[in-house]
């Protein structure tokens, strides 16, 4: 387990422990969040309860993604496996940064749309977050749609991310999946990848 702080030395075999904990914690929170959101919009029975869960969970994700982002920029990450094509590496890099973008944008648009519609942003009974936008039908319309479209996109991205990760874990078996787990198996860097250090 390498907690490399200096980029000069060899790339680490694993993401640092903070990244790994945040990854799996946020993965479960985000999947929960997507289904809580869908339930809120459809359920005859559970909407008030789900809404009371959706807001604090969303704010928690917002705080965690900020910590995760700082951590990501502060520490070196493992290289992509040697066998990966340059297309795959680039796609992975783009998807990873897009996931960060979504994790930030979804809580913010949620908070903003509640503000634009004049709703309280209720964390707990009696504890509300301040409004971050003035009331405006135009802003509400735009943010409400953006929140929905991005939530659906995030779901597809998460599904794609999971499928790709399982492909690496079960089919390629190149150690990429292990870099975000606690497994000893490390990335196969026996051959120098043509893409070089894929994510930098």
């Amino acid at each position, binding site marked *: 387990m390498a907690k490399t702080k200096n980029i000069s030395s060899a790339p680490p075999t694993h993401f640092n422990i903070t990244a790994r904990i945040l990854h799996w914690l946020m993965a479960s929170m985000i999947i929960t969040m*997507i289904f809580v959101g869908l339930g809120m*919009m459809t359920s005859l*029975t559970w*909407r008030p309860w789900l809404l009371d869960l959706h807001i604090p969970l969303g704010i928690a994700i917002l705080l965690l993604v900020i910590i995760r982002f700082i951590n990501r920029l502060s520490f070196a990450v493992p290289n992509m496996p040697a066998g990966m094509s340059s297309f795959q590496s680039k796609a992975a890099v783009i998807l990873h940064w897009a996931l960060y973008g979504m994790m930030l944008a979804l809580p913010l648009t949620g908070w903003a749309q509640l503000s634009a519609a004049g709703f309280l942003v209720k964390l707990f009974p009696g504890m509300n977050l301040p409004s971050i936008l003035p009331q405006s039908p135009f802003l509400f*319309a735009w943010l409400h749609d953006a929140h929905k479209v991005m939530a659906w996109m995030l779901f597809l991205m998460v599904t794609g991310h999971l499928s790709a990760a399982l492909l690496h874990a079960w089919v390629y078996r190149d150690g990429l999946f292990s870099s975000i787990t606690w497994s000893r198996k490390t990335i196969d860097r026996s051959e120098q990848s043509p893409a070089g250090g894929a994510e930098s």
Partner: protein
Amino acid sequence: MKKASLVAYLKTKRVLFKLVGIFLIASGLVLAFAWSAGLIGGRITTRTFLKDTPKTYLAGYRRAHGKGICFEGTFRASGKGVPFSIARVFAQQKVPVTGRFSLGSPDPYAPDNSTRTVSMALMLTADDGEQWRMKLNNEPYFATRDTEGFLEQVEAYKPVSNTGAPDPARVAAFLKKHPEAQKYVKWDATAPWTRSFAGAQYNVINSFILIDANGKKQVIRWSMRPHAEFTSWSVRQRKQASHDFLFEDLKKRLEKGPLYWDLVLTLAEPGDPVNDPSQVWPENRRQIVAGTLEVSHVFDQTKGGCRDINFDPTRVPKGITLSDDPVLAARAGIYSHSHSDRVREIGYGKATDAVGKHQKDNAGNK
């Protein structure tokens, strides 16, 4: 080189089996998503309740109770609610109120004698920032015990094309399945229609729970009981009434001075049907006047104000919480769709009438 060895490797490791596994996991997730979103499976969702909204619906109007007028007023707490709930509204001297009177018809241009249902919706904002939103009707109870029953009622009472009246067989089948609705049907057929918004009593219908300083819970319902006298009219008078009689009457009364309603809390006792909005509680239940609502003036909903507010009755302040009344929970999701649909229409500039912009003006601007 790498590729050739990879292919050999894939063959030995039963890759197809693994790929199918990954595909099944991903499609399982997608199916779960689609079902949760109501896209597959045909389950009843809160969207189902808006499916009858006509395609030609006037953009920017509420999907139900389209015709209405905004009001502003003040709620003055009596202090008698304080022992039962920590909500600030029960203690605060003057709480500002934004609200709306409306007619039960979905049509924003319905004549005022076309329905017996009138409503009061309001939002109280206490000085601790907490909001209390409510939506009250002049009906004394809900027709059915649950939300699905409401859909069945709508279906059963749809006019048949050859007679223009509901099919008696379907109505009978509905009443057999929902015997509790007979009470409502009888009330609807016999109770006098109100001749004024001012003299009507508005009832919350659903149950809520008050929470006191020690966390003790008390199930309640409430009503806005008018200070003005209830007035009705004969069928002949009603049929001859002018198109906007009720709204004109309200404006005229308010020119003379404010109108008042007492907020009356009715306390349930153990064993009362607290999760069934179609059942009333016994007459002798204790009642408390928690305060008085003063409605000081009204203004056109096209000017904003109440227009874009979702009077979702599940948005209650700290010190009040929701009962497990199934109709109450369902209203949250249904109101949310109606609200986001119409505010989107206004936000994207599709609404004309609803924001006081006439088609003519639009054409002139082009």
